[in-house]
């Protein structure tokens, strides 16, 4: 009932049709996007390590999170080997996941539901490691949306850095509700 009432009110009150603007003509950022991407991520509290080979991932994660034992590594291990950890996701200390695409202008990494393994995992893990192929960098959000398909899966997210807040006197605190740290392993 209210649906019809609202739509009727809009029809009555809306202005005459204004054409949609032409798609935004965005600037390119040149060929090598990695330095800008790394700088953007470091600015928001992320740590970036550039790896030559994917085989170095596990050792790098261990080195960075030496004290931690509950590491759910979905990049090197198949999903079922982590089932026990997933069962009590809130106790996972480090989750290692693969990102689909990185945005140089802001350090954001795009992941869809299947990349997250479970929707809550990148948020509930204490620390997050994202693996990203250097070839999968785009300059800006415009380039990102030109490549990704947001309808392929039920959920997707851009993650730019560890969770943070400045709600107490504008003091930046890393580690609000989501991951307390973000390590990005850039491959290539």
């Amino acid at each position, binding site marked *: 009932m*209210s649906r019809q009432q609202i*739509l009727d009110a809009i029809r009555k009150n*809306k202005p005459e049709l204004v054409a949609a*603007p032409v798609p935004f003509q965005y600037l390119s950022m040149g060929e090598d996007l990695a330095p800008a991407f790394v700088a953007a991520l470091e600015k928001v509290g992320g740590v970036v390590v550039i790896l030559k080979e994917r085989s170095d991932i596990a050792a790098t994660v261990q080195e960075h999170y030496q004290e931690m034992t509950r590491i759910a590594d979905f990049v090197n291990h198949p999903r079922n080997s982590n089932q026990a950890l997933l069962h009590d996701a809130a106790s996972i200390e480090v989750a290692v996941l693969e990102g689909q695409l990185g945005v140089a202008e802001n350090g954001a990494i795009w992941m869809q539901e299947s990349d997250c393994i479970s929707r809550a995992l*990148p948020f509930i893990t204490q620390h997050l490691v994202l693996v990203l192929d250097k070839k999968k960098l785009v300059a*800006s959000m415009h380039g990102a949306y030109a490549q990704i398909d947001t309808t392929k899966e039920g959920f997707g997210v851009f993650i730019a850095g560890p969770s943070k807040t400045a709600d107490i006197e504008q003091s930046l605190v890393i580690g*609000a509700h989501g991951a307390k740290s973000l390590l990005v392993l850039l491959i290539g």
Partner: protein
Amino acid sequence: MSFTHHSHPDAAKDFVQNTERMKWHDEALWFVRAKRDRIAHTVPDWEELRNQASAIKQHTLSNLDVYLQQFEEQAIAHGVQVHWAADAREHNEIVLKLLNQVGAKKIVKSKSMLTEECHLNPWLEQHGIEVVDTDLGERIVQLRKEPPSHIVLPAIHIKKEEVGELFHEFLGTEEGASDPQYLTNAAREHLRQKFLAADAAITGVNFAIAETGGFVVCTNEGNADLGAHLAKMHIACMGIEKVIPKTADLGVFLRLLARSATGQAITTYSSHFLKPAQGTEMHIVIVDNGRTTQLGREAFRNSLKCIRCGACMNTCPVYRRSGGHSYHNAVAGPIGAILAPNIDMKEYADLPFASTLCGSCSDVCPVKIDIHNQLYQWRQELTREGYAPAGKKMAMKMMGNVLASPKKYSFSGKLARKLLKWFPKLSVNGRLNPWGRQRDLPDVPEQSFREWYQQQSSQKQSR
């Protein structure tokens, strides 16, 4: 959770009593404004982005019914249930009904100015449901039983020592502790328990995409995601103006939103919800609550372009020195002052006058709303409708009368120069003129410009 004052001048008077605190508040917000400037200047196509965003919103508003229906159709096709609410009451009833259907008693909510506007929390609490605001700033004001004072920085008016006292009382932190890192960590542990135990999650919506039926929620803390992904039911509440036509438009809006809001390139999390996860329910409540009326007001229609970044508040010299609560509305600051009178002209007649009309708000607005111009137009509208403050109305009438007649004007000038010389405190510092309480006039000139000019030309002739 209600406001202590219902008049901006009265509330502001209290706020400015503590000069040191006012200065602190002013500087905290200016710091955010300066961050916004720095990052905006690093984006070479910033102005083009603002123009594009404004044009997309202009187009969307002119075709809003079509886009809302497209959004609804797509969302339903993806297994999401869509509800429509004409006003705040219906919105609250829908949310309560949905929660009752699954027997949800513990709710976690991420930031949603719409649910503040609709006063959802007290409504749910009255019906035996626990609502926990999970954004850190919102949790702080909720524990203090206050409304947020800023749409992006809800606790910007509170000092860390006060947060320390509050958390000592409610979360058992050490007495006297005021380190933001320590306090944030305590809130993290406290709210993790709430997330894990919640029956349902309520979030706002930053952008709803007609093309796909999906919606985007932006946070830095990750609270919207923890809530929505861990609970069996996710209810997302949105005003009708949140819809945008295409996914590609998000490129424009996400580049503008966080840069304008806090000077970040993007929020930590930009979450794209499309379908409910297996075994869970997802609902969207689309709310009018006066927005269609605003759409019909030609002079104020553009206010519906707002993406709730808060930049106009951070820059506003009045907001910075009077605090968010002085606006006695869910949305404070310049944008609140043009949205609120649409909902209730009588209650919010004071707000468009709480501005210097300096235009800084319009300069920083990422969707180029002519905010200061709308403030000016609201003043006229409110006066026409008989809602302007009585003193202001009388003064304007007298001024109009005098200014309309050259004779009266010339006479009043002469009289004023005499009177002010004899009684210098009469006009500016009198009780009738609140503006003059902290101000003095410059010395009164001997003659008017007109008299001086006539004198000059007669001297010239005589030479």
